[in-house]
């Protein structure tokens, strides 16, 4: 494992003793770990504000990927040779790292998938297969399409009914009808822990307690929370969580489903194929125990190992320090963006109960145009409906512009964004 340059707690801004206690790191040193951040885009230094879409990768992760392919590459779980053993050991070590990172009871509760979408579809098939007409699934108006469409499809297959929490004007979940919405017919509540579009961090204890009270299970879409916040599945008391590697410094092609072991053990397979079996005859197959039961075929081996390296990096910096850094950036950005005439923020306008993802409209200028002008200045933002079209409809717009921060972003980059927005207004005024 290569060394990490920045040490947690090694840097406190001068004259700010009140921050002595908070865990923090020197973002300037962190940026040295990310080769892409030295790039120029359209003649300007890259300002990457699209980490909610996909994060950049530190060289510690890139090195592990290269080393795996150059020195250890072999298929997993089926070879007696040295390379196969090394590969299998590294793959399973990654599973253990991910388990420890989210406080899972055992590595056997970690199922590697392709991404969050596949993790949610796995639950929709293997858990959802037992649903019947009259059963209800509860989601929210704030969901990414990956936490809407699998449930619509499941309802079509089983005759179950889909219901949802509404969003308040402030961009929070409306829990006023929690008792009615989550009731004795509810089998599953599946909602987003942190919104990919509004940045809202949603409450968990009240919803999960109510769901368990009526015997329903809870799946949290943690695609945006696990990369940015300390997440402990034992403390959350959820039943399943889904997240993806590429949003947390890891490679694309690797995602995670965490599930309580007894639930996973009670679920039939999702995809059938190699690896997931116990014994096969031409008439009948019996299945392996979780997590292997849900990992048919050759898995994304290098990607899982790369995710393990990403988890090492995040754990070394410390999730409290990362969350603190992004909270400061969000507060700074909300204040700075409020100075731009004609800018309207969707979602929580105060830096409490939200993460560093901020969507906005500017003066009736279409997000495509906002994004294009910002790109000409090297600033990379996301535009469109963010795969959360119902949320856009809720706020009466076809599309939004979104900036999203990560552990490597700086207040200088927020300043560049605000200057860029002035430029946008100049072009389209």
């Amino acid at each position, binding site marked *: 494992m290569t060394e990490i340059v920045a040490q947690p707690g090694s840097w406190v801004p001068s004259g700010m003793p009140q921050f002595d206690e908070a865990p923090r790191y020197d973002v300037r040193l962190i940026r040295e770990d990310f080769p892409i951040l030295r790039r120029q885009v359209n003649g300007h230094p890259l300002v990457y504000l699209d980490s909610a879409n996909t994060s950049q990768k530190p060289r510690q992760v890139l090195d592990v990927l290269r080393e795996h392919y150059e020195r250890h590459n072999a298929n997993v779980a089926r070879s007696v040779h040295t390379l196969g053993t090394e590969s299998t050991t590294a793959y399973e070590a990654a599973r253990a790292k991910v388990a420890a990172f989210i406080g899972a009871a055992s590595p056997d509760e970690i199922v590697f998938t392709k991404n969050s979408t596949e993790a949610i579809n796995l639950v929709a098939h293997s858990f959802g297969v037992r649903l019947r007409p009259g059963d209800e699934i509860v989601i929210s108006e704030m969901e990414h399409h990956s936490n809407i469409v699998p449930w619509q499809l499941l309802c079509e297959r089983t005759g179950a009914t889909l219901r949802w929490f509404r969003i308040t004007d402030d961009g929070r979940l409306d829990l006023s009808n929690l008792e009615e919405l989550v009731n004795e017919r509810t089998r599953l509540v599946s909602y987003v822990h942190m919104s990919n579009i509004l940045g809202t961090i949603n409450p968990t204890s009240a919803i999960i307690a109510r769901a368990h009270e009526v015997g329903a299970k809870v799946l949290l879409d943690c695609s945006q929370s696990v990369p940015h916040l300390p997440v402990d599945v034992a403390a959350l008391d959820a039943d399943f969580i889904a997240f993806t590697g590429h949003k947390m410094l890891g490679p694309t092609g690797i995602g995670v489903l965490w599930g309580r072991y007894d639930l996973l053990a009670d679920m039939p397979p999702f995809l059938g194929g190699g690896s997931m079996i116990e014994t096969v005859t031409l008439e009948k197959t019996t299945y392996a125990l979780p997590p292997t039961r849900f990992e048919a075929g050759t898995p994304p081996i290098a990607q899982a190992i790369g995710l393990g390296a990403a988890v090492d990096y995040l754990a070394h910096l410390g999730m409290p320090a990362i969350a603190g850094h992004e909270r400061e950036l969000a507060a700074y950005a909300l204040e700075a963006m409020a100075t731009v005439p004609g800018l309207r923020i969707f979602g929580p306008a105060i830096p409490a109960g939200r993460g560093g993802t901020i969507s906005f409209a500017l003066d009736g200028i*279409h997000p495509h145009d906002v994004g294009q002008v910002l790109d000409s200045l090297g600033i990379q933002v996301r535009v469109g409906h963010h795969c959360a079209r119902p949320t856009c409809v809720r706020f009466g717009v*076809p599309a939004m512009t979104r900036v999203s921060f990560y552990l490597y972003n700086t207040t200088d980059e927020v300043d560049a964004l605000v200057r860029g927005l002035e430029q946008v207004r100049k072009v*389209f005024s």
Partner: protein
Amino acid sequence: MQFEQLYQEIILDHYKHPHGRGLREPFDAEAHHVNPTCGDEVTIRVRLAGDAIEEISFEGMGCSISLASASVLHDVMSGHTVTDALARHDAFVALMSGRGQVEPDEELLEDGVAFAGVAKYPARVKCALLSWMAFKDATARAVADVAGPVGGTA
């Protein structure tokens, strides 16, 4: 700078002062097209007089490129025969698919030549083509309705 090739003055003019915006009655056919990646929408209405395009009107929500191209479409197509209009349509599609390598024909495309720069931005080509594709659909329906024995609106 490449960026200025994208947002030509002509395009910004059409965006700020669009021609043909606001759906008109009567019409022979209309088509509604959506860009699923960004949620942009446009409705195009066409009215024929004989074999000529008598009127084109549109309504929509979208970026400057998509709204300006609808305005240019209105100017380029109005008053021309259907055959002529489809030739212009093909020329515009060829220009937009040309990755900046196609020399635009100003005689055919008029202000449409300003979109030559858009062809260098693959992410924006769909924006420019949205209303033109809807126009082709609407015109085909109008021709079928006017020629065919069965009436009805599209």
